[in-house]
C-alpha cells in the first residue's frame, strides 16, 4: 500500500510545477520562462488564460435587464400559470398561499395546508434520500467533479441553465453534449464553420420526464451512445443521439446517479449513487453489479486503459480502493465479472512529511482522480483541508503500472502559482510523448504540465524522446521502494455481497 509519507517534499511555495522529466517534477519561477534545458523538449501547447472579468458570474445574471423595467404586479392567475410552468404544483400552491387579498380566504388556507403536506412528504422523501432536499444548484455543486465551479457558457441557449457537465463526442470532432438543468443540449459545432457563436438552432434538446437536473454525461468511447444521469432519477439513460431515442436502465435503489464513467475500452461503466452504493454496468447486455460501501458514497473513480481495473475513493475515507475485473470475463455475455473484493491500494490519510523548510502536513480525502490514457500516471485532486496548505486543494501525482502486477508509486506534488488552487484536472487523450496533465487553476489559467516518459502505448511515436532520455528505472527515481504491489501487499478484504468484513485501521496502512 502506498502512503503519503513516502512522497517527495513539495517544492518551495513560489515555484510552479512545469513538467516531469527523468522521473522528477521540475519546477520553475513561472510558466512563461521554462529552464533552458527544457527548450528542446518544448511542445507547442496553447496558452490559455481566462481572466475573470469577462466572465459574468451567475449573480450578475440575476439582475440583468429586469431592473430596467418598472415592476409590474401580475394578477394572481397569471402568476400561478407561470409558477406552474416553472415549478409545478408546489409552485402554484406557494403562489396562492403567499398571495394577499387576491383569493378567497379558504383557498389560501387550503393551499397553505396542501403546501405543508407537500413539504412534509418531501421531507419524508428527503429523509430517505437526503440529497433530494438540496436545491438543484447545490446538487450540482455537490456531485460535480469540479471544485468551486463557476461555469459560464459561450454557447447560448434558452434552456442552457445550470450547466453541470460537458462532454465532447469521441470520433466526431464536432459534437458537444451539455448537461443542463432540465435537459441535455447537443451542440453540433462544425469546426469548418465560419460563425463563432453558433445559434441555438444548432442545438438539439434531449429531455426525458423526471430526468433533471442532469449532472453527469458520458459518451461511449466508440462514440455511439451517450449516457446521462441525474441525482434525482434512479435510472441512467442511454441515448442514441441521432434518432433521439433513449433507453432507461432502471434501478430502484440508491435514489439517483451522480457520476458516470465509461471505461476506456468501452466495456464497462461506473455509476455512483448518492447513497453508499455504486454500480458497475457491463456495456454489452447492460447488466450491473452492485457494490455497497459502508461508509459513504463513492466520490470518484477512474478506469485503467484496458478496462480491467477500477480505482475509486469513498467519501469520508482517505483511501484509494482498487477493484479488478479479470480478463477472462470479457467474452462472457452479460456478465460484469468483477472480483469479489476490493483492495486498498493507497492511504491518503494526513501525515507529516519532512521538508528542508520544516514539517509539512499532507493528506486528506480525494476529490477527483484521473488516470492517464497510457496507464502510467495517476493524478489525484485532494479536497481542501484546513490543516493542509491553508485549505488549498493539492494535486498528487502517482506513477502506476498496470501489468503484470499493479504498482502505485509516488511521483510528486503538482503546484501552481501562489494563491491559486486547482479546480479541475484532466489528461490529454493522446499525448505521444508521455502524458499531458492539464490543470485548471482558480486564477483562470489553464496550465499544461507535460510528463515525459517512454509511453508504452505509443512507443513508436516518440523517436526524439528516446534519444535524449533513457527509459525510467522500474523502481522510480526518488524512492526505490515499491509502495504498492499486488504481490506484496495484504490488504483488508472487502466483500461486496456481505460488506461486513470492513476491518482495517488506518494505522495498519502505513508500512
Amino acid at each position, binding site marked *: 500500500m502506498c502512503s503519503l509519507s513516502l512522497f517527495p517534499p513539495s517544492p518551495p511555495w513560489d515555484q510552479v510545477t512545469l513538467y516531469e522529466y527523468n522521473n522528477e517534477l521540475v519546477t520553475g519561477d513561472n510558466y512563461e520562462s521554462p529552464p533552458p534545458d527544457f527548450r528542446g523538449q518544448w511542445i507547442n501547447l496553447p496558452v490559455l488564460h481566462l481572466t475573470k472579468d469577462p466572465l459574468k458570474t451567475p449573480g450578475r445574471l440575476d439582475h440583468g435587464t429586469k431592473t430596467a423595467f418598472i415592476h409590474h404586479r401580475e394578477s394572481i392567475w397569471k402568476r400561478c400559470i407561470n409558477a406552474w410552468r416553472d415549478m409545478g404544483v408546489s409552485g402554484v400552491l406557494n403562489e396562492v398561499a403567499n398571495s394577499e387579498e387576491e383569493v378567497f380566504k379558504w383557498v389560501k388556507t387550503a393551499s397553505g395546508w396542501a403546501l405543508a403536506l407537500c413539504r412534509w412528504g418531501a421531507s419524508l422523501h428527503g429523509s430517505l434520500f437526503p440529497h433530494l432536499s438540496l436545491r438543484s444548484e447545490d446538487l450540482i455543486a455537490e456531485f460535480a467533479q469540479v471544485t468551486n465551479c463557476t461555469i459560464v457558457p459561450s454557447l447560448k441557449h434558452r434552456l442552457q441553465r445550470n450547466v453541470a457537465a460537458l462532454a465532447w463526442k469521441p*470520433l466526431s*470532432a464536432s459534437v458537444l453534449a451539455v448537461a443542463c438543468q432540465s435537459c441535455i443540449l447537443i451542440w453540433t459545432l462544425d469546426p469548418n464553420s465560419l460563425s463563432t457563436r453558433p445559434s441555438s438552432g444548432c442545438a438539439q434538446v434531449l429531455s426525458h420526464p423526471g430526468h433533471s437536473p442532469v449532472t453527469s454525461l458520458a459518451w461511449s468511447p*466508440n*462514440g455511439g*451512445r451517450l449516457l446521462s444521469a441525474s441525482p434525482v432519477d434512479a435510472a441512467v439513460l*442511454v441515448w442514441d*443521439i441521432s*434518432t433521439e*431515442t433513449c433507453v432507461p436502465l432502471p434501478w430502484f435503489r440508491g435514489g439517483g446517479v451522480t457520476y458516470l464513467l465509461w471505461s476506456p475500452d468501452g466495456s464497462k461503466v461506473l455509476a455512483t449513487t448518492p447513497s453508499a452504493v455504486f454500480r458497475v454496468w457491463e456495456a454489452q*447486455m447492460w447488466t450491473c453489479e452492485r457494490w455497497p460501501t459502508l461508509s459513504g458514497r463513492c466520490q470518484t473513480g477512474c478506469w485503467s486503459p484496458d478496462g480491467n481495473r477500477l480505482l475509486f475513493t469513498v467519501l469520508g475515507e482517505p483511501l484509494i480502493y482498487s477493484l479488478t475485473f479479470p480478463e477472462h470475463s470479457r467474452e462472457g455475455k452479460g456478465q460484469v465479472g468483477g472480483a469479489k473484493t476490493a483492495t486498498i491500494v493507497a492511504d491518503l490519510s494526513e501525515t507529516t512529511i519532512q521538508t528542508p523548510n520544516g514539517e509539512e502536513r499532507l493528506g486528506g480525502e480525494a476529490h477527483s482522480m484521473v488516470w492517464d490514457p497510457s496507464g502510467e500516471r495517476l493524478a489525484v485532486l485532494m479536497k481542501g483541508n484546513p490543516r493542509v496548505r491553508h485549505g488549498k486543494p493539492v494535486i498528487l501525482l502517482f506513477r502506476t503500472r498496470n501489468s503484470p502486477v499493479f504498482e502505485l508509486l509516488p511521483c510528486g506534488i503538482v503546484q501552481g502559482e501562489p494563491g491559486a488552487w486547482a479546480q479541475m484536472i484532466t489528461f490529454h487523450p493522446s499525448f505521444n510523448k508521455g502524458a499531458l496533465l492539464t490543470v485548471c487553476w482558480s486564477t483562470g489559467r489553464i496550465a499544461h504540465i507535460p510528463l515525459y516518459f517512454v509511453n508504452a502505448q505509443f512507443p513508436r511515436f516518440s523517436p526524439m524522446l528516446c534519444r535524449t532520455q533513457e527509459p525510467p528505472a522500474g523502481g522510480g527515481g526518488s524512492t526505490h521502494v515499491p509502495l504498492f504491489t499486488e504481490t506484496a501487499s495484504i490488504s483488508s478484504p472487502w466483500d461486496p455481497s456481505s460488506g461486513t468484513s470492513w476491518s482495517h485501521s488506518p494505522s495498519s496502512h502505513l508500512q
Partner: protein
Amino acid sequence: MGVWRRLSRPPPRFSSVAAAASRPFGKAPSPGCTERVGERVALRPPSPSQLSASLLRGQGLQVPSGTARRRRLQLPTGRSRGPRPRGGSSQAAPRAAPSTSGSSRGPASFERLWRAGNPAPAAAAAAAPAGTMASASAAAGAPAPPPPPPPSLPSLPGPGNARSPASLERDRLWRVLGWRIATSVVWSVLLLPVCTGAFVFFSSLDVLHPVQWVSDALHDLYGSCVLSSLLLLSALVIVISVFNIEFYTVVPSIPCSRLALIGKIVHPQQVMHSLVHSAMGMLMAWCAAVMTKDRYHVLAVPCTDADSLESKAARACLNEHHLFLLLAGAFMGYSYSLLYFVNNMNYLPFPIIQQYKFLRFRRALPLLLRHSAVESLYLLRNFCFLYYFLGYIPKAWVSTAMDLQKDEKQPPLDSLSGLFDLSLLYHVWLCGVFLLVTWYTTWVLFRIYATEAHAFPVQPMFTGDVEECLPRVLNDNTPLIIKYLALQDLMLLSQYSPSRRQEVFSLSQPGGHPHNWVAISRECLALLNDLTQRLVMYQEAAATNGRVKPPSSPVEPKKPIVMEEETAFQTPKASLMPKALMPSLVKASLFSPKFASPDTLNPVCSPYGDSVSNRAVGIVDIKSPRHEGPQSLQSPQLTRRGPRLWTSLTDPQSNGPRSPHASPPPIRREAQHKGRGPPWKLCLWLQNKQEQVKSFLAKRVLIVYFFSKHPEASIQAVFSDAQMHIWALEGLSHLVAASFTEDRFGVVQTTLPTILSTLLTLQEAVDKHFKLPHVSSRPPRISGSLVDTSYKTLRFALRASLKTAIYRITTTFGEHLNSLVGFK
C-alpha cells in the same frame, strides 16, 4: 449456363481466374443459378461415379487452382466411403466444396431444400425443371452456344419456377426466427390469463363494497364463462400474432404524398387486415361482455315494459348495451388496424442497446399500459360520436334481423341522455383497454423476440452449416430481416467478440484465402456503394427539379483493355483513386459504365453474372483502367441503372427496400434501345407530352393536394433502410480498427484502400445531400410514446456513424495511412 461451362475450361492462369471466379460467384447469383446447382445434385444419379463426376465438374468451375486439384483427388475417396446415394451426395458435396465460395451453395442449398421439403422428390423435381428452363433462357442470351444438357437431366417443364428459392428462404427464416416467434406467441398466450384476470377484477369494480368486490371477482375468475372465453381469446391472440408475423417489415414504408397514404389504406391487404381486426375486435368485445355479465351479457333480453307483463316471456327486446359494446369492439379493432399502418407499427425498430428480453418487456410494459389507456379513451370518444350520429342503422338492422323489439323503457343509446351513462362508458373503455393491451402485448413480444440479436457462426462448425454462417447469409439473397440480423450480428461481433473477429480474419484452411473477410467486406461495400449511388441519383433528380434532361453525351470510352485478372480486392493497384479527382470521380465512376454496357448482356442471368461472363469470356470491356476499382464493385448495379429515362428520374427513389439484387429488366431493355438510337425521338416526344400533361394538372388544386410530395417524407424514404448501412459502417470500421492489432495475416490491408475510398465517396454524397433543402432540419420528436419514430431521423444516424467510422479508421491507423498502396 454458358458462364459456368466457360469457366470450367482450363483457364490460362490459375490464380487470376480463381480470384475472378470466387468473387462474383460469392455474390448472390440469380435464382436460376442456384437452381441449376441444385438440379445437378438433385438428379438422383444412378451410380456414385456419375455423381462424383458431376461434383467434380462443380469443383472445376470453382477453384481451378492447386487446392481444388488436390480436392479433386480427395473426392472419390470421400464418395466411396458413403455408399448411400442420396444422403451421401448431400454430405460429401459440402465437404468437398470450399467453405465460402459460391458454388458450395449448390449442394448445401439442395440439402436445405431437401430437409425443408418433403423427402419425396417433389421439390427436387420442381427445382430441376426450373433450373433447366432458367439455364436455357440464360443460354439463349449468352454469346456462346449452350452446350447440350447432360443426358441425365429430366427435361420436364415445371411450374414451380419461384418455388425452390422461396422455400429455401422460408426455411432459413424459420431456422433463425421460428423458435423466437413461437416463443413470443406462447408468451403472449401465457400472459393472457393475467390480462383477463385484471379485466374481470376491474370490470366488477365496486368501490363502496370492496370486500364483496374482491370476493365476487375471485368467484368470477373460476367461472366457466371466463375459462371458455379464455380459449377463444387465446385463439384470437394467435391470429393476431399471425398477422404480426405476416405484416412486419424492417424497412418502414413512408408514403410520400397524400395519395400514397390513401392508397396504403385502401390497399387490399390492408383492407383485409382491417376487416379481420374489426371482426376480432367484435369477438373480443363479446368475450368481454360475457365476462362482465351484468346487463351486457346477452343481446336479447326480456322486455321490461310494464304493460306487457303477461307476454313477457314471449317477447324479447334488444339489449342495446350489448350491441354498443360489440360495435365499440369492432370500431376499436378497426382503429387499431388503421393506426397500425398509419403509424408504421409494423416496422421493427432494432434496439439501440442489447438487453435481456425480460428487461425490454418490463421497460415496455408501463408505456404500453399508458398508451392503451389513453388511446382507448380517444377511441371511445370517437366511437360515441359515431354512434350518436349513425347508431340507428345497426340498431335497426339487428332488431329487424333478429326480430327483437325495442325496449321503450330504456333510453336509446344514440341520444345524449343514453350515452351519458358512466357505467356504460367505463365498461366500454375497460373493454377497449383490455383489447389494446392484449394486442399490443402480443405485438411488443413479437417485436422483442424478432429483433433480438442472433449469433450467426462465422465459420461453419460442420459442413452442413455452410448455409447458416455469416458471410453466406450476408451475401445471399436472404429475406431482409435475416440480412438485418446478420448485419447486426456483424456489428456486435466486431465490437465485442475478439474470438469471432479472429475467425473473420482467418484464412481458409487449405488454400489460405481470406474468404470470410472478402465476403463480409464485399457485401458491406456493395451496400454502401448502393447507397452512394442512390443519393447521387436523388441529388440529380433534385437538382433538375424532377425535370427531364436530355441525356448527356456518353463518357468518352478510354482505351479498351481486356480485363481478365483485375478485381478490386486482389489487386489494390487497380483501385487507384486520386483524391483530387474525387468530386468528379463520384459521378464518373458511378455513371460511366452504363453507356458501356454491351448489348450482348443477357438480361435474364444474374446482374453479377454478366460482368463475370464478359470478363471470363474475354469480351472487350470498355472501362478505364483507372476507374476499375470502384467500378468493378459497382458495375453490377450500375449496369442495371440504365440511362436517365424519365421513368427513373421522376421517381428516383422507390418506396421501400431497394434490394441490391432485384434487377428491373424493363429499364435494362430500354437502355439497350436507347443505345441503338431510333426510339430517341419517340422518347423525347413522350417526355414533352408528359411535361405538358403535368403542367396542366399542376394547376388543379385538388390534384396538387393529393399528389404533392411532402419533402420530409421523400427524404425519409431515401434513408428508410439506412439501418443496414449504419451497421455495415460500424461493423466494417470496427473490424478494420481491430485489424490493426488482431489481423495476423494482413487480410484487411488489401481491402483498406477500397474501404476508405468507398467511405469517402459516401461521405461526399451525404454531405452534398445534407445541403439540399429540408434535409438538415429535424422532424419534431415525440418522446415517451409506444409508437417508434426513430426511422424518421435515420439520416442523421447515418451521417454520424459514417463520420465516426472514418474517424475510427484514420485515428487507429494514424500516419500509416500514408503508406497505403493505392490510396493517396
